[in-house]
């Protein structure tokens, strides 16, 4: 039996742990229970990677210890893992514990699992208490009412723990725990815990209560929301700490759905307005991100009126915000409003905002507008924008930062599709060709790829008339980098252009370049021939390509030889 349990180095130990199921299989269920698991329980001082792998493995170990009947044997090692100081290991151990809790019979759950949860919940160190927070919700539904009462008591205790870590863990599991509780206890227990956590002295705890708010609000009947949840939510939306307000902004759509249309109209609309006008840019940006979703989810009967009178004025202010993150967050969603507001409102109210953002000083804002043009196209047609669009595109196309240029290239096929071939030929074609001789390789590469997508869109005939001549013209450029770009373009275009254009127009140029004085160009000729070979007919291959490759295969340069030989063998010309 060649199975290793060798604790030599981390890598070895890690490998051993990853093969733990094989080892257990070899040992048999009996020895796994009596020897392997006790050993593993004591090895918790090992490296994090090993412990993480161990915690994960044990979650799938039920069959290896003898099935659900013996699943409780896995609890001791997982219990020790749930107390280590490394968060990822603890979380994984809790995840595995949650998984195997389902495999416990109701009796085992009370005899073995629930005592473990209690031990963790009353552990000396915060690490075990934080782990306990994640386990209440899995055992609660399946235990007797006496035990349920104990579990509720333990959870209550942890919610007012001394260490903020435990309170954070409790706050983050509050919503999940509320879901498994009986409604009466949600009202009596959970609400008071929720209120307490939401007014914790530490903002790191308070902000987690916002998340719980969503789940709790979903559970309660509409008539109770006003008295039980809304005071806390209102308070959170106006919290002194920006991080809490940020969390409210970030969870706004979920909150909106959870509290329903009436409360949304009366409470959330003003709250959202305030978040959009918040003094902290992070909060405004988070709220700006939610503008479209919030508007979409407004009750339809007076959606338009709410947007026009309450939301749009704030949006208008954000367009000229001082912070560029806020503006770009807005730019990424603002176009979505046009579908909600319809053609007339879009032209009258939104278009000026789009145009303003297209002229924004920050390239990211302009890019975000351009990348979402499709939404507007559906409503008003892109022509309305094209006057302003063009200068914006040209400016981005020539931006000093190559990443900006790269981003705009990626939107070119989309723009071309929406603006149509005529407009493209007239205004944008020159830009696309100019990128081919950009001084940054990434741009030239993206430009090549862009040409291929354009050809796919506009067809081979268009390519033959507008692109191919220009590309082939670059084969005589004095700069060898540009000559290579010709080859890269041919690689990308040959398939889209088809056999005819490739054989008649591109192949002669490639073959001619095999005499280039720069070796880099020559070996790229070999690579190109290999690439376009499948598009050519066998006659051309034999009579034209083969002699050139054979000549290159005797080149003085090693790399040229190598790639020529590779092409010969791939194309089966030998």
């Amino acid at each position: 039996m060649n199975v290793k349990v060798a604790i030599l180095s981390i890598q070895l130990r890690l490998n051993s742990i990853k093969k733990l199921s094989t080892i257990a299989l070899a040992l048999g269920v009996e020895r796994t229970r009596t020897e392997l698991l006790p050993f593993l329980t004591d090895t918790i001082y090992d490296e994090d990677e090993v412990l993480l792998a161990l915690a994960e493995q044990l979650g799938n170990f039920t069959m290896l210890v003898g099935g659900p009947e013996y699943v409780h044997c896995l609890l001791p090692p997982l219990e020790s893992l749930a107390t280590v100081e490394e968060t990822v290991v603890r979380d994984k151990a809790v995840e595995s514990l949650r998984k195997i809790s389902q495999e416990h019979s109701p009796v085992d759950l009370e005899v073995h699992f629930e005592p473990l949860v209690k031990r963790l919940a009353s552990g000396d160190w915060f690490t075990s208490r934080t782990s306990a927070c994640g386990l209440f919700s899995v055992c609660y539904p399946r235990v007797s009412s006496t035990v349920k009462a104990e579990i509720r008591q333990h959870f209550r205790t942890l919610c007012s723990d001394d260490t903020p870590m435990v309170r954070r863990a409790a706050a983050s599991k509050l919503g999940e725990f509320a879901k498994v509780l009986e409604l009466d206890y949600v009202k009596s227990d959970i609400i008071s815990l929720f209120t307490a956590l939401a007014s914790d002295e530490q903002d790191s705890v308070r902000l987690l209560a916002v998340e719980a708010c969503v789940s709790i609000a979903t559970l309660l009947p509409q008539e109770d929301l006003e008295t039980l949840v809304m005071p806390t939510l209102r308070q959170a939306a106006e919290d002194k700490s920006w991080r809490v307000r940020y969390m409210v902004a970030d969870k706004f759509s979920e909150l909106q759905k959870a509290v329903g249309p009436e409360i949304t109209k009366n409470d959330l609309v003003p709250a959202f307005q305030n978040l959009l006008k918040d003094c902290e840019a992070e909060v405004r940006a988070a709220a700006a991100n939610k503008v479209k979703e919030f508007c979409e989810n407004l009750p339809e009967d007076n959606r338009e009126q709410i947007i026009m009178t309450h939301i749009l004025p704030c949006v208008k202010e954000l367009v000229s915000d001082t912070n560029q993150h806020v503006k770009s967050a807005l730019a990424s969603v603002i176009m979505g409003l046009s579908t909600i507001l319809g053609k007339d409102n879009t032209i009258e109210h939104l278009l000026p905002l789009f145009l303003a953002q297209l002229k924004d000083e920050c390239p990211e804002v302009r890019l975000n507008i351009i990348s979402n043009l499709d939404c507007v196209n559906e409503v008003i047609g892109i022509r309305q924008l094209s006057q302003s669009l063009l200068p914006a595109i040209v400016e981005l196309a020539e931006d000093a930062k190559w990443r900006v240029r790269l981003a705009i290239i990626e939107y070119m096929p989309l723009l071309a599709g929406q603006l149509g071939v005529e407009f493209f030929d007239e205004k944008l074609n020159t830009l696309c060709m100019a990128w081919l001789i950009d001084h940054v390789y990434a741009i030239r590469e993206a430009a090549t790829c862009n040409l291929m997508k354009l050809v796919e869109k506009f067809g081979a005939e268009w390519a033959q008339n507008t692109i191919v001549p220009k590309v082939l013209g670059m084969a005589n450029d004095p700069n060898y980098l540009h000559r290579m770009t010709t080859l890269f373009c041919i690689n990308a275009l040959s398939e889209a252009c088809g056999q005819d254009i490739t054989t008649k127009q591109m192949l002669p140029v490639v073959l001619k370049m095999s005499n280039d004085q720069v070796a880099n160009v020559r070996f790229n000729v070999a690579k190109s021939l290999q690439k376009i070979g499948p598009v050519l007919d066998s006659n051309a291959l034999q009579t034209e390509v083969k002699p050139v490759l054979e000549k290159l295969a005797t080149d003085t340069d090693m790399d040229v030889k190598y790639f020529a030989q590779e092409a010969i063998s791939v194309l089966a010309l030998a």
Partner: protein
Amino acid sequence: CVGGSSERHIYCLWVFKESGAMTGWEQVCSFQDPEPADLSMEEESDTRKINNSFLRDHNYATEADIISTVEFNSSGELLATGDKGGRVVVFQREQESKSQPQRRGEYNVYSTFQSHEPEFDYLKSLEIEEKINKIKWLPQQNAAYFLLSTNDKTVKLWKISERDKRPEGYNLKDDDGRIRDPSTITSLRVPVLQPMDLMVEATARRVFSNAHTYHINSISVNSDLQTYISTDDLRVNLWNLEITDRSFNIVDIKPANMEELTEVITSAEFHPQQCHTFAYSSSKGSIRLCDMREAALCDKHCKYFEEPEDPSTRSFFSEIISSISDVKFSHNGRYLMTRDYLTVKVWDLQMENKPLETYQVHDYLRGKLCSLYENDCIFDKFECVWNGSDSVIMTGSYNNFFRMFDRNTKRDVTLEASRENSKPRAILKPRKVCVGGKRRKDEISVDSLDFSKKILHTTWHPHENIIAVAATNNLYIFQDKVN
């Protein structure tokens, strides 16, 4: 382990009595670098309690042995020192035993490890020293201990843990570590854990790097136990203790044009209870209090503490000596203490325009600023500490003197940390520096002070009257005299 060339010694402990802490300090132990023995783990039980007769002249000390920071943990059971050689030495308090009551409060070496190594920044052609600038303990979260240590650029999170078992009975090697012939292995064994001698291990759990352009002068752990700040000359960065690949810049005082630079940050600390409040001090003698709830960037302070300058005492050195070298919140969170070159000031957080209390540390140096400027001493960065109940403060001076001020009785005392004048269990005698022309018998004249012997780093046990004082390569631990 500390190599053969660099060694370490222990000294004693002394005390203060009368109204809690002001008269009799006795030396409990002291440690010195270099120390004659190699401090490897196995040998430490024999060599860590160094007899005074072993002590060599401290002139042998190399630059690397100079202690650069000293810090008690939150229970006071452990004491960590960092030195210019990038090493961290952790001392553990001896358990009190009835048989040897006189050994109360003795600290012994618990763990020694190399925290930082010298590095070279190839992009800037700069050497990065390994010197440990600050150590901060994390509150204990399980059986292991955690501390943050930092040099100029990189903060590291260390775990110090004990191991007393090891696995035995492998399948592929025998008990001596030899690989077994696979053909002889016929059955599968599960290793078992066997007890072994206690081993203390220090492992680097996180390395927080590449976030500081300038030199890190302080680190501070937040009371939310989730974040900490690291501060350099111009910026304060906020980190999550679990995330090493990003930090948030929360204060940036770098002007667009570096020629307009008039002020640098000298130190920063979190409030002990309010997780959203921190304070930072500047080279211009002011302290700013920031509230992280108000905005993500804390460039705007919410409180600004500064004492208006007295025009009558203005001189060429005014600005240099008003630079704050250390800022510390009191344990109760009501006060801030700052140290500048000549004084310690206590500020009430509710009063921004002037300090509540000002204590003269060594006012007799006021007339010697010119020579202190010439020998660069005027730029020394003295730290200051509170006692556990915030009633006494302590800070260092020259000639291996350190000062204590009782805030209630307004008494103050000057003590000296030196091997020549103190033996273990001896009571420290208060020292006096004479200012005028006539020198009394037990007084020292200002001119005979040794400015190369300075006490920059001190720490006070969080609950008891035990202090640790670093004097160049020596560490002295004193405690309140037992009745």
